[in-house]
């Protein structure tokens, strides 16, 4: 069952196909124009994070498989910086995800590239597990930037103070933050994210952060370029209304919010951000994307 309508939306008429979605009703507005690539957040979309291993989100493994089988290009874009990417990949594979390292975009390799390119020596305030990957620059050289990651318990007063002092003595202080999130879900509860500490240092030192990771457009564009897809042809699916949804929309992508992960119903309606769609989980998002695929 469906209908066909011809509308004038500019110089040439456009033919729209309206198909009922699984939930009934017309195809969502966000599916009208072609989708040629999908970006997926990890924590809160593929799995729920916890102190031990975490738990896979029902339907997400199958959803990712369906994307792959359908030939729909996708990449994972995460701000996860408490774990090295290899460890994260192993964890996802243990849940049944079939993924390749090159499909995962993390702020860590992105910032390492930046540090090399600009010959920066970082003062690190990051999780101990990722410190090794970020030790760049000549040993003993004075720090020329602070790199802030999700340090969790490493966000002690002493460590914040060291980072503060490091910035205050730099001739040209640079504060590089791996993400700008407000909070995320871990062990079934919300806890502070790196953005909180970026704001703290911005306030204390009077500097502005440079964000590597979501929602920086450069970060999204890197993943899009890797897929060979333009922003207007791509959809980002995430649980963070700012970093994922708004970040994507500001780049020209569509942003879909899931009700898993850090989502709370009190978030909506949001005063400034309107997701292109709100779905229960990744499975629902992929159902809709693939249903529309054949029609565009």
């Amino acid at each position: 069952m469906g209908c066909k309508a011809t509308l004038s939306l500019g110089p040439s008429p456009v033919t729209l196909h309206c198909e009922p979605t699984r939930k009934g009703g017309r195809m969502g507005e966000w599916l009208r124009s072609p989708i040629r690539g999908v970006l997926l957040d990890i924590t809160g979309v593929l799995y729920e994070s916890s102190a031990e291993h975490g738990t896979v989100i029902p339907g997400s493994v199958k959803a990712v498989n369906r994307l792959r089988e359908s030939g729909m290009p996708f990449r994972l874009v995460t701000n996860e910086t408490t774990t090295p990417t290899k460890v994260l990949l192993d964890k996802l594979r243990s849940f049944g995800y079939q993924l390749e390292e090159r499909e995962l975009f993390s702020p860590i390799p992105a910032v390492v590239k930046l540090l090399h390119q600009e010959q920066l020596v970082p003062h690190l305030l990051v999780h101990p597990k990722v410190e090794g990957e970020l030790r760049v620059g000549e040993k003993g050289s004075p720090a020329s930037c602070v790199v802030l990651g999700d340090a969790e318990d490493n966000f002690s007063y002493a460590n914040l103070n060291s980072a503060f002092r490091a910035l205050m003595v730099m001739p040209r202080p640079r504060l590089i933050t791996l993400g700008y999130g407000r909070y995320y879900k871990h062990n079934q509860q919300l806890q502070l994210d790196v953005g909180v500490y970026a704001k703290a240092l911005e306030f204390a030192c009077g500097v502005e952060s440079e964000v590597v990771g979501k929602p920086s457009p450069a970060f999204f564009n890197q993943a899009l370029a890797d897929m060979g897809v333009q922003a207007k042809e791509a959809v980002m699916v995430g649980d963070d209304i700012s970093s994922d949804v708004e970040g994507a929309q500001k780049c020209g992508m569509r942003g879909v919010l899931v009700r898993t992960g850090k989502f709370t119903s009190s978030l909506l309606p949001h005063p400034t951000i309107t997701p292109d769609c709100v779905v229960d989980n990744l499975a629902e998002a992929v159902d809709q994307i693939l249903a529309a695929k054949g029609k565009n």
Partner: protein
Amino acid sequence: MRKIGAVLIDLSGTIHIDNTVIPGAIQALNKLRATDVKIKFVTNTTKESKRILHDRLTCIGFTIDKDEIFTSLTAARQLVDKRALRPYMLIAEAAREEFAGVSGQDPNSVLVGLAPECFDYEHMTTAMRILLEGSPLIAIHKARYYKRSDGLAIGPGAFVTGLEYSTGCKAEVVGKPESSFFHTALQDLGVSAAEAVMIGDDARDDVCGAMTAGLRGILVKTGKYRAGDEDKVDPVPSFVADDFPRAVDYLIENGLSLP
């Protein structure tokens, strides 16, 4: 020229740093007391109660009455009582006695002072969760940094700003540079803001804050002062002195009047 009837004097960084007297400060204070101005010591120091602070100042040689000290902790306590709040307190151990009798059970607010020992990830996360329920955030002050014996240290303002960002709330600030703080300090001296001057080492929180509240402001180049601070605030200080003794001399030389 305005006649000055009251002098508000900052403590940490202005007349002392921890247990060290700023050279000449004791004599300068005596000189000021010999005039007819009213004096109050106003401080955002929240790491210790008024009693402990008074003991420290007395130990190092100052003659100060406890009632002459008005702290942002006092201002915070007044607010908590007025609104019958049950705060989750990120307050230094030594400051807790100011909140004796205040219940923290089933908290309906968060109170943040200068408490490095409480600014760890666990405490901050707990505070965030309480704020996400819609509870108010009360900041005793929002200092960006403060001077310790081992150098500058990141201040509670940074952590308050982080919590505001995390939860989308706006902190209510009770200490300097809020105008209400200066007005409350002057209240029992019976002197108006226009006839008062604030002397302090923090261009923004002491001097600019006071001047915005209608007082005159003298910036001293001790404590947390960094070169050029006077150019970064608006309005510019009424006067910039090398230190507290010089500030007092300036006031007396000008017949206790300021333009």
